């Protein structure tokens, strides 16, 4: 099928197009130079913004913890439901929507690629089953490898090459995309009822420190030539004073960066930019983190922006979730995933009038505005931890308009509003920078070559928003911008028009991307390893890998490793 998008104001930062009026030609699901205009279907995008389809680097949309979240929160489904239509399936859920609804809601906002950030390898089959049922978007998932016993053992023995081969095997086994590290060492400690509180604490039983885990896996990441960096959820997440830990985490891999390429991605950075001794003296550490990041090129961040709403927190960070339960007294779930990781779920409500929550809201925005280079920080809410992904348009409005920020600031806790740095920041992002933080930057950091841009050969994932950059001043008319980003005028996925005026036109399946890492010699799956499966896992070695037929549409990405 051929498609021509005419006369739109194109924002495509990766190819250097900044609001120029031009046509985009699409043929067979790819962007092409030219097509036969007479035959092609045309979209008139005059007076509209054309951007590459949105990319979300970190959003918990599938897997066992999301499903447990769904199970323990019937009240979350009660008031937010979508009936079946001729084109779409029904679904429920506000903070943890069902899989189909997740896909539809992303497509309505013009997003076409979503990364599911935490998958215990043991739950890989479940995660892929849910991902296969998430339509409209291409997706990938990151296996949790920071507290995997094999990782810890090989790191302790200093055998990085063998670890690299094992991780290559693991990527293939779990059909994963990047190395996710959550609270390195802390999760293993949590299996024994404790936690680690600094980068140099010992992990019980393994005589290894979080610093060694992060550095080791960062080196492995490089050995394997993985497209994304290590994806790190820092130690001490959600504790006052943890901004120092976050900076230390970034510092510990500073020397491993090469050619100005990022070496580490600190995810939902808002949660690890807390200053203060305790909750009373709690304040923002965003300035310190931004100052550090502004002078370095080896780090990328994502925001984890808090939105005031009722949501469900879920991470693989079991000890943090336990502390959150102690804080809220709400219902909770916590789980130790055998030899791999932990997880926890606690429903949570962010309130405007709560000092800590209001300060958290300012931290996310301060980070995004104080980090000068938009290629280093991306828009996320760590869905659903800080807010559901459906609130992205609201965050875009906050980033683009000082007036929008002030309007919210009037309604938050007074002391938080008085103490924060946010009112003194004048910066307002323009459409091009929004295109970077919501798609181009994320695609670049993820190493997705065909996503996040509209150059020739790219996947034909396009979002068209009904807002005219020449006549609309986003700074003053932030509500218009918010509305436009909430309901895309058109979303094109793989060359097909799937959304028009915020309505789903067509149900399409997305690809599941995974890394086929090819090492020079295969990982040594010896008898000892198989016997360990028998001793420590509830799943036999033979049943452990996810075979390719599990994925609805499999899209392997071949990576040539250096080992």
């Amino acid at each position: 099928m051929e498609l021509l998008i005419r006369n739109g104001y194109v924002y495509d930062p990766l190819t250097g197009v900044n609001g120029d009026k031009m046509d985009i030609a699409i043929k067979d699901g790819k962007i092409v130079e030219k097509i036969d205009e007479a035959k092609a279907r045309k979209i008139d995008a005059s007076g509209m913004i054309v951007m590459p389809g949105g990319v979300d680097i970190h959003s918990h949309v599938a897997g066992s913890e999301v499903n447990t979240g769904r199970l323990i929160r019937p009240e979350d489904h009660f008031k937010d439901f979508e009936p079946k239509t001729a084109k779409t399936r029904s679904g429920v859920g506000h903070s943890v929507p069902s899989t189909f609804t997740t896909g539809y809601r992303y497509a309505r906002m013009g997003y076409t690629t979503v990364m599911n950030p935490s998958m215990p390898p043991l739950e890989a089959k479940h995660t892929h089953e849910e991902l296969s049922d998430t339509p409209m978007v291409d997706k990938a998932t990151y296996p949790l490898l920071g507290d995997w016993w094999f990782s810890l053992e090989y790191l302790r023995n200093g055998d990085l090459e063998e670890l690299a081969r094992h991780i290559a095997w693991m990527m293939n086994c779990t059909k994963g995309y990047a190395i996710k590290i959550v609270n390195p060492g802390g999760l293993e400690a949590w299996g024994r009822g404790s936690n680690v509180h600094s980068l140099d604490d010992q992990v019980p039983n393994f005589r290894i420190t979080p610093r060694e885990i992060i550095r080791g896996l960062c080196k492995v990441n490089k050995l394997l030539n993985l497209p994304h960096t290590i994806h790190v959820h820092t130690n001490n997440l959600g504790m006052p004073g943890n901004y120092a830990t976050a900076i230390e985490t970034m510092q510990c891999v500073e020397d491993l960066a090469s050619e100005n390429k990022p070496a580490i991605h600190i995810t939902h950075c808002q949660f690890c930019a807390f200053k203060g001794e305790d909750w009373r003296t709690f304040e923002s550490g965003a300035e310190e983190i931004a100052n550090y990041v502004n002078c370095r090129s080896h780090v990328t961040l994502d925001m984890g922006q808090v939105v005031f709403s009722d949501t469900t927190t879920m991470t693989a960070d079991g000890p943090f979730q336990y502390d959150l339960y102690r804080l809220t007294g709400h219902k909770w779930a916590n789980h130790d995933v055998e030899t791999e990781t932990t997880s926890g779920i606690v429903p949570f409500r962010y309130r405007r009038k709560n000092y800590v929550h209001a300060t958290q809201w300012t931290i996310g925005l301060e980070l995004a505005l104080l980090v000068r280079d938009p290629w280093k920080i991306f828009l996320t809410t760590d869905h659903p931890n800080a807010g559901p992904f459906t609130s992205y348009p609201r965050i875009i409005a906050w980033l683009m308009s000082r007036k929008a920020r002030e309007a919210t600031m009037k309604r938050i806790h007074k002391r938080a509003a008085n103490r924060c740095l946010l009112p003194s920041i004048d910066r307002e992002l323009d459409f091009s920078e929004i295109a970077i933080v919501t798609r181009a930057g994320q695609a670049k950091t993820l190493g997705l070559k065909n996503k996040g841009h509209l150059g020739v050969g790219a996947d034909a994932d396009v979002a068209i928003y009904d807002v005219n950059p020449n006549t609309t001043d986003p700074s003053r008319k932030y509500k218009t911008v918010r509305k436009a980003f909430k309901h895309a005028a058109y979303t094109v996925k793989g060359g097909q028009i799937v959304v028009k005026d915020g309505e789903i036109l067509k149900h399409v399946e997305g690809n599941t991307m995974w890394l086929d890492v090819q090492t020079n010699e295969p990982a040594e799956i010896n008898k000892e390893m198989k016997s360990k499966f028998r001793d420590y896992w509830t799943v036999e070695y033979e049943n452990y890998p996810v075979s390719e037929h599990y994925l609805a549409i499999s899209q392997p990405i071949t990576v040539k490793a250096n080992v």
Partner: protein
Amino acid sequence: MIVMRPLREFRFPVTADCVTPDIFENKTCKEIEELKVWEGNKQKRLGDLFKIEESDSEKANITIYGDVSKIRRIGSCMKQGEIAIQGNVGTHVGEEMRGGKITVYGNVGGWAGSMMKNGTIEIHGNTSDYLGAPYRGSTQGMRGGRIIVHGNVGSEAGTCMRKGLIKIYGDAGQFVGFHMIDGTIYVEKNCEERAGACMLGGKVIIGGSVESVLPTFTIDSIKPKAKIEEDETANGPFYVFLGDIAEEGNGKLYVHKEKNPHLSQFERFL
């Protein structure tokens, strides 16, 4: 004043959240008949299910005669006015009610007064489980208002209650005041087990007998009477228990001393 009579016996549950004085206000009988309700999975007109007429002899804004035990969500979100139901009624009566009054001269299904914020519900028959409790999984319980039951009540009355008053002049089932945060529950007669489980605050007064008090409650004192509301007190003497300690709660559980001689063993801890 509107009078409604069911035209037939209902086989499927009917969701009739349009039956409130706020929606009926300034509408003629013809317009009311056109309101939409769901019967099972089919959408129907209210006029298909009820005979609707105006009457000057009735005091309440809406009076329903007959058995409507399949009808759900009557008086949902109502803000003012009065509904009188002469017969049995289904679940979710007065859900999220904000004001006004509902009187039922019959038995009531589950979730009566669920998540209500203000107003009064008076029930002259028995009610089923989850009286004044929130939707499943939610902790946003009753925020205010009064529920008065002259008959018996099922399990989990007043779950997650935050404010308001529930008066039960009959027996109550298990888990009265489960996870309640504030407010008052008065049970005149007997109570099944686990009264006040997980309570964080508020007051549960049991005027009849109760088989046992949860081990996570400690005895505090013996009081001659317990205050139910401004001008109403229950005469004791009462054992006063504090709990639920397992949740670090500070709720008060009043249990009648004379009707529970088996609890006298607690007196040695005083």
